[in-house]
Structures are given as C-alpha cells and as structure tokens.
C-alpha cells in the first residue's frame, strides 16, 4: 500500500527580504545641552506619538569636527519616548567607533541625509481619519495623481497615497474618497471626502456639485446633518482649512 505523503513541516528558519518602516533621526548638532532641550520640547506635546518604531541616527549633517554625542544617553532617551534607535549611518570613523561602544550598529552605504528635512514628528491629525494609511514612511509628494472615471458607489473607498485624486464621476452617498493631497470631484460629491489624510493642512477639496455627507481636511472634519447653506448646496465649491483648525467652504 502506498504511504500517504505527509505535508512537509515548515523549516525552522526562513530568509526573506523585507523593507522596514523606520524613522531617521537627523543630528544637526552633537552638543549635549542643545539635544536635551530640543528632545524635551519636541516630544512635549505628543509623548506617545511613536510606538516602538525602529530608528537610525543620521550623522551626515554633523560638522566634521563635531565631538561624539553621548550615544548611550541619546538612545536611552529616545527609547523612553517610543523610538528604538539601533544604528548610525554616514558617521565619521570616530563617531562610528563610539557608537559601536554604546551598542549601536553601523550601517554602510546609506543614502546621505536629505538637504532639507526636519526631525520633528508630523503633527498628529486632530481626529484620526477613518482609513488609516499604512504605517509606511510618508510617500514622496510627487506621487502621481489618481484618476477615477467611474461612479463611486456606496461602500466603495478609494485612497490616493501621497498625492491628489481626481474623480470624474459621481461620488454617491456612502462612498469615500481619501487622498494625502487634494481631492477634485468634477461631478456630484454626495459621499465623504477626506483630503490631507496624513496631516497636510494645505490640502483642499474641490467639487462642481457639493452635497457631501462629510468633508475632512487633515483630520478636521465637518458633517452636514442639516442641509448646507442654500447658496452652496449642489453648487461648485471648494473646501479648505483656515488657521489649521477651521473648515471653510466657499463657492467656486
């Protein structure tokens, strides 16, 4: 009798490539006092912003003659705020040696620090948008515009990661359009529109026929339980954020 073939057990170890979502901590100064004050002000408002993400110290912008920062203290300080620094990159040999002493790794061949970038965490949206974008690092602002030319029906949801979205057909009640950038709807907007889903307060919503259930920009939202003001309802309109906290609806 032939023996039944047993399914092979999974091997104890498998190797696969992966891309980690991580945070770059760009050091502009190695001066202890400056680091102490900046870390405390940076995290004062949002102490729980990070949730254990991996992080790398980017040293490419430190002056060549900078003294080595106190790596052990710096790593511990950030760890207590939810960041897990594990390595340094673009460090001079001397800084790298001190980092290794403090238990950090040295990454090779890393891309140099961007010319302009801030270490500040982006401001947390006032209220979390419904569709939580993936926990990937912010996509480049030049993501291509997404174009939708079929009606969006109740229950359907489209998300334009990193860029704008243009909808050429109706957004029906119960449908949801989400974009990291601005939203353009050249048809009746009767569903929900959430622009600036990752906190871009300059994002706007444009439509040729405003009848939305909900609009949101960078997490600041407005519902329309009572009918819209008469001059705006079912008319071309733009929606933007004033003073980062106030939804403004204007005729187009």
């Amino acid at each position, binding site marked *: 009798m032939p023996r039944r073939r047993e399914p092979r057990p999974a091997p104890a170890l498998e190797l696969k490539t992966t891309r980690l979502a991580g945070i770059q901590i760009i050091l502009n100064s190695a001066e202890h006092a400056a680091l102490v004050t900046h870390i405390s002000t940076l995290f004062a408002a949002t102490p729980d912003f990070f949730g254990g993400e991996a992080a790398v110290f980017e040293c490419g912008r430190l002056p060549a003659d900078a003294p080595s920062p106190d790596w052990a203290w710096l790593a511990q300080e950030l760890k207590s705020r939810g960041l897990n620094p594990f390595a340094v990159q673009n460090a001079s040999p001397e800084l790298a040696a001190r980092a290794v002493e403090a238990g950090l790794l040295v990454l090779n061949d890393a891309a140099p620090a961007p010319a302009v970038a801030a270490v500040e965490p982006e401001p947390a949206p006032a209220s979390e948008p419904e569709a939580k974008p993936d926990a990937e690092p912010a996509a480049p602002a030049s993501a291509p515009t997404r174009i939708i030319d*079929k*009606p*969006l*029906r*109740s*229950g*359907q949801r489209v998300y334009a990661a990193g860029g704008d979205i243009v909808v050429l*057909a*109706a957004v*029906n*009640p*119960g*449908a949801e359009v989400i974009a990291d950038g601005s939203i353009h709807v050249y048809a009746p907007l*009767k569903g929900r529109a959430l622009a600036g889903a990752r906190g871009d307060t300059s994002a706007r919503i444009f439509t040729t026929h405003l009848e939305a259930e909900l609009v949101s920009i960078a997490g600041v939202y407005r519902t329309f339980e009572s009918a819209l003001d008469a001059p705006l309802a079912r008319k071309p309109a733009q929606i933007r954020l004033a003073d980062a906290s106030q939804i403004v609806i204007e005729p187009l």
Partner: protein
Amino acid sequence: MTTIITVTSGKGGVGKTTTSASIASGLAMRGYKTAVIDFDVGLRNLDLIMGCERRVVYDFVNVIQGDANLHQALIKDKHADNLFVLPASQTRDKDALTEEGVEKVLKELEHQGFDYIVCDSPAGIEHGAVMALTFADEAIVVTNPEVSSVRDSDRILGIIQSKSRRAIEGREPVKEHLLVTRYSPKRAAEGEMLTYTDIQELLRIPLLGVIPESEAVLHASNQGIPAIHQKGAPVADAYLDAIGRFLGETHPLRFVDYEKPGLIKRLFGGK
C-alpha cells in the same frame, strides 16, 4: 450561447423574486429556453411564486452536492413552455453554495442548451448574494422608490463591479439594468416617493422599466402564477415592456405619469 442574468437589489422585500419569476417567464414566452434558480437557500420563495412548491423533490443544494442530477431537480413550469425552475433548499444554509458547485451547475445548464439563466439573489450583500452575482453576464437591479433601497442598490452595483467574475478577470463588465418596482406615480408626483428620474440620476445605469405598485402582484403570488401572466394588468404590461427592452426593442415608458382625476372621474369614482 447562454446568458446569465442576476436579479439583485441589496435590500429585501423590493420584488426580486417577483421580478425573477416574471422576467424568466417573459423570456420563456418569447421562445427562449430559460432556467430560473433560487439562490435564497434557507428561505426559498421562488417555488411558491412560480406555483411549483408541491413538486419540489430535489433542490439546488442537492445538485451542488451531487445527491441528485440536474435533470431530477429541474421543475418544468406549468404556465410557460421552455421554462424550468431550480428551487432552493429550505433546510440548508447559504454556506452550502460553493463557488465551484455553482459554476458546475451553471456550466451544465449551458451544456443543456439553455439560452437564459435567471439567478434570483437573496437580499443582503453576504455570501448568498455574492454567489448569485459572481457568474452574471447581466444584472437587473431591482429598486423601490425610496432612499434606503436606492442606497442598497448602489452598494450592490459596487459589489458587482468588484466581485463578479467578469470584473475579476478584467473582461467586459457586467451589463447593468435598473428596474424600479412598486412605483406609484401619484405618490411620486406628490413628493412622497422618489421619482424614477431621481433614482436613475443617482444610480446612473440604463432604465429597463418601471413596474407600478399593484395589488395584482399580491394576488399573483398567492395564486402561484407569476405577475407577468395577469393579462391586461398594468404590472404584466410593464414587465412585458421590460422584457422587450431587455431584448433590444424600444418601448415608451408606461404607468409613470400621474393625471389628476377630472371632475367626472371624481364624481363617478373609478380608479
């Protein structure tokens, strides 16, 4: 070439089964060999509407599970030649419908030379409804003139556009038709109901027909005779028109305009 038509709506009680029975009967009356399948496993109704409930021996689930062959389960309709009913099981639940099983049955019907297969979808957007629309070539979306029904129809259209085989395989999309049922021109004119143009404006799919609200439908259901056979009744005429439009003919819309009764009509009564 077999065409699979799914009659669906999202919302319950809007007239899917009534429509399935009448559309299938209408196609058979035009000479097409037609099967109508009840996908509402667990709550079977189609056999009642078709008046064949006492002749059900084997059902759709039996055929899927191989307990009976298709020939044993198909019930020949009393009122129309060329029409066969495949009833649902009352004792199982919708999980008994597997995609492979449904595909097998549909393939076999195709093999037997059926021109049209009408799938009567259950309400909702769960497994049973998805099974009913998976293999659709055309969809008749049944909608009542009220907001919740229109919203649910919109939702089911979205599901057709994402979950049907045609959508998944990137073939030509499922052809969608709007059928407005239980329409009262008087109440629409008085603003108590949505008008059929309101509905079409939102759903943006071609209008197959408007079926007026009528007690004849209730009588037809109780007698087990599909409403399309009620000779002379507006409901039957509206369904016959819809069949004609489905087959590519042009018929003006009837039973959609409300005329205020004149003095004489009011004095002497009459409907």
